[in-house]
């Protein structure tokens, strides 16, 4: 019975929430009402069995809760700002609610565009998207973003209030406006994903969970908006990085890419990612999508190499060069140096690192890479000195113990 509720939750949460938001124009009420409805479903369905139409059952239960709440509020004369929802959608929703089998085409995409509206701070938009589009409980969102539940609840409440108070519409964007908005949506999703990979001291398992939720969100957006270059590239990139999760850490120690057990990579996810990239190879994505696309191509080269020794470094270096030209990022230069060293030897890599300290003064990876390349170039004393700086700057326990071992192996 629990399975029926879980299935309904996964399949119906976003759609039902979008309908309730369109109907009642209040994010807080729609969210609470629907959460209550799922709780009631867990109780009732366990006894009576799941209903024939779980969506209709949940919608009715949620509406009842919301109407109760509205009545109570009228007594207390509470005034909450209401979302801007255009009249035609409200009428459409009225008839959909009368016949819940009928589907609105884009109500969930409206919800995605609302949560990832550029007027919200990206970290708020990211958390709000997980909460409202996927239905991830607030306590869980807080855990994924490494803040207390109270802090996250306050952040979500502020974001919901701002959307209503500033008149952000629950509306579709069309044409080029949709493409622009999907770039923001992609950034919001990738922020959730990288929260999972941020080099904090958090547990690695948690990062895998956050990344998984971000991928789920990207899949939902792709289902709704169709094949869009920026979303395809983003989803491919995340899948490729995520596919290495089981090989990345062993006995609480980081396993670097060349040493990873490739049989532990998720090959189904790699195949899916390659399939997402393929249609865009002829006309490469531009704008924000280009950065995700080039990073995905690099990750794909690693993913398809049968062994580390068979990696096509010349392609990887070329992709990094294009990515550096596109982003002007010193971090990209650092990665390009690693690829150049693999292709042409340590001196080529060291040459590319020249002058990067000014742009990346606190970046331990810069010094770790320099140490590695100096060691390969036959200068162990300079290598150890560089590694010492890296160890000083590094805040991640697993990475620091790796660096300490490297120094010991050189000297």
């Amino acid at each position, binding site marked *: 019975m629990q399975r029926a509720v879980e299935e309904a939750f996964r399949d119906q949460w976003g759609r039902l929430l979008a309908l309730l938001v369109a109907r009642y124009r209040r994010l807080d009420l729609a969210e609470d009402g629907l959460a209550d409805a799922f709780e009631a479903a867990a109780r009732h369905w366990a006894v009576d069995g799941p209903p024939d139409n779980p969506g209709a059952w949940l919608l009715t239960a949620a509406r009842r809760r919301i109407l109760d709440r509205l009545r109570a509020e009228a007594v207390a004369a509470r*005034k909450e700002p209401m979302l*801007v929802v*255009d009249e035609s959608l409200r009428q459409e929703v009225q008839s959909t609610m009368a016949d819940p089998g009928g589907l609105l085409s884009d109500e969930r995409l409206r919800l995605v565009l609302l949560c990832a509206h550029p*007027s919200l701070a990206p970290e708020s938009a990211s958390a709000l998207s997980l909460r409202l589009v996927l239905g991830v409980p607030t306590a869980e969102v807080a855990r994924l973003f490494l803040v207390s539940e109270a802090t996250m609840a306050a952040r979500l409440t502020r974001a919901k209030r701002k959307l209503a*108070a*500033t*008149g*952000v*519409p629950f*509306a579709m964007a069309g044409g080029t406006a949709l493409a622009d908005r999907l770039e923001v949506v992609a950034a919001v999703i990738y922020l959730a994903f990288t929260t999972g990979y941020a080099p904090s001291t958090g547990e690695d398992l948690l990062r895998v969970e956050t990344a998984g939720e971000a991928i789920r969100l990207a899949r939902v957006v792709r289902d709704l908006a169709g094949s869009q270059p920026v979303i395809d590239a983003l989803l491919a990139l995340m899948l490729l990085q995520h596919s290495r999760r089981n090989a990345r850490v062993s006995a609480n120690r980081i396993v670097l890419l060349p040493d990873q057990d490739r049989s532990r990579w998720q090959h189904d996810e790699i195949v899916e990612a390659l399939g997402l990239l393929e249609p865009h190879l002829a006309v490469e994505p531009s704008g924000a999508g280009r950065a995700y696309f080039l990073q995905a191509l690099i990750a794909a080269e690693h993913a398809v190499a049968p062994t580390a020794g068979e990696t096509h470094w010349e392609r990887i270096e070329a992709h990094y060069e294009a990515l550096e030209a596109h982003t002007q990022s010193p971090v990209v230069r650092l990665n390009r140096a690693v690829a150049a060293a693999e292709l042409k030897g340590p001196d080529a890599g060291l040459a590319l690192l020249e002058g990067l300290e000014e742009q990346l003064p606190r970046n331990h990876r810069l010094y770790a890479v320099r140490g590695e390349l100096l060691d390969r170039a036959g200068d162990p004393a300079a290598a150890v000195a560089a590694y010492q700086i890296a160890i000083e700057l590094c805040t991640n326990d697993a990475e620091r113990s790796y660096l300490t071992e490297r120094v010991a192996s050189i000297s």
Partner: protein
Amino acid sequence: MRYFVTIAYEPTVWSDASEEVQKTYHQAHLAFHDAVEQRAQLISGEALAGPETATTMRHVDGKPVLTDGPFAESAEIVGGFYLIEAANLDVMTSLCELLPSAYSLEIRPVIQIDGFDQN
């Protein structure tokens, strides 16, 4: 909804602009007015004299005290405002895209204060 748009810019944006550039600013405002007429409603809008003309009043020990200059020194100065009735924030921001790109624009909804209804 009704939005108050504060226009701010670096002081040199107007003073250092060539006649040519100033003309493009005027054209941008005209395009904005045209678009507002079609897609929203202009309630009011004015350009302000420079911050050197500002007088600030605060009460100190219960007495009004005047000082020379604006509230706060900042890199940007407030140069004008618009008050506009628009369907939603997305309409408002797409209209604002027509204004000169040298501006920083703060877009805020206007609210009704309970118990203060003049009508």
